[in-house]
């Protein structure tokens, strides 16, 4: 899932300060799971901003609401009235949610309350770790199910490097060496021969380096006729 983290409250308060009517919109998907922008977090942010305004003696209308998935237009459309009626939308979704609202209502100001951090998984309650960078060409079938691109500080395809010592990474001794983990996993799976196979340089054309990526599935796309029908009948 996408893991995000709330921006410092001081920064958020400064962002929203010039606007009279602010709508804070959260999302019940990834950011709710990572406790950054779900219903509870929206309520707490709204309340904290109101307490700050109280401290400053400032009048500002702040309302909070949550949509099911902020990155999908259908769900955003449900709160259109609130978006249109506010001076500023403060998105508590990942950047995708904020950008979806921004694209749908280009005249509206949509500011992010969260910093979108990574594709990660919950390791334990309250701890999330990065496991994928979305390079567009998955190779984990060759690395024991562990992604060296995301988990090795150098994104090495043939590791470990000389900086790996006592199963730790030289970049940060708190960080486990991804290639030590890959070695262990391959050994467990009786596939250690894979670690000796040299992996060729990665084709990064599938990654972000080529600019914005768009995925299209022709069989799922609507025809012009279907789109017109949807516009008419909803």
């Amino acid at each position, binding site marked *: 899932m996408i893991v995000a983290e709330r921006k*410092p*409250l*001081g920064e958020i*308060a400064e962002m929203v300060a010039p606007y009279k009517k602010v709508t804070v919109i959260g999302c019940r998907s990834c950011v709710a799971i990572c406790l950054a922008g779900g219903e*509870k977090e929206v*309520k*707490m942010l709204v*309340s*904290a*901003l*109101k*307490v*700050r305004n*109280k*401290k*400053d*003696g400032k009048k500002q209308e702040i309302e909070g609401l949550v949509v099911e998935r902020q990155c999908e237009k259908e769900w955003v459309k449900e709160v259109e009235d609130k978006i249109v009626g506010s001076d500023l939308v403060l998105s508590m979704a990942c950047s995708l949610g904020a950008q979806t609202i921004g694209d749908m209502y280009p005249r509206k100001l949509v500011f992010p309350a969260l910093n979108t951090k990574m594709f990660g998984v919950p390791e334990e309650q309250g701890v999330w770790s990065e496991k994928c960078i979305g390079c567009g060409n998955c190779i984990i079938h060759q690395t024991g199910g562990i992604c060296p691109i995301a988990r090795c500080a150098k994104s090495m395809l043939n590791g470990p490097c000389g900086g790996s010592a006592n199963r730790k990474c030289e970049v940060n001794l708190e960080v486990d060496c991804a290639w030590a983990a890959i070695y262990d996993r391959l050994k467990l799976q009786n596939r250690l021969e894979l670690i000796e196979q040299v992996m060729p340089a990665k084709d990064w054309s599938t990654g972000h380096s080529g600019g914005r990526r768009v995925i299209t599935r022709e069989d799922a796309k609507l025809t012009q006729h279907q789109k017109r029908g949807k516009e008419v009948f909803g």
Partner: protein
Amino acid sequence: MSERKVKVVGFCCERHGADAMVLSARMGKTHDASVRLVQVPCSGRVDGIHVLKALEDGADAVFVLGCLEKNCYYDTGSIEGRKRVNYVKSMLAEVGVEPERVEMFNTSSSNAWKFPDVVARMVEVAKRLGPIGSKGGGKQ
């Protein structure tokens, strides 16, 4: 001019927190009657939003009173309560409001004498800091 009544809200767990409240009264101890006490099933039930909402709605100070941490009726409820109070304190600090307006206390029913002390301490904080947004309230 009469002195302004402070507004303190206390969330007390219905086990040791509330027991301490009742027993302290039976012991003849008194506390400031202006304090609004809210009985909750467990201090772990108190969420950050409850504390923030109390401040937003006019409380000068808020406290949460739970069981002793290694003697919580629900095992870890008072630990959860403390974590949440600490989180709210950090949020208050970020928006420039005194974190000491919010505190977590632990007690047991056998330590009922502590209850009036807890209330007195928070009343003192509320008096010293005043309402949020007053001249004395909120960091400038």
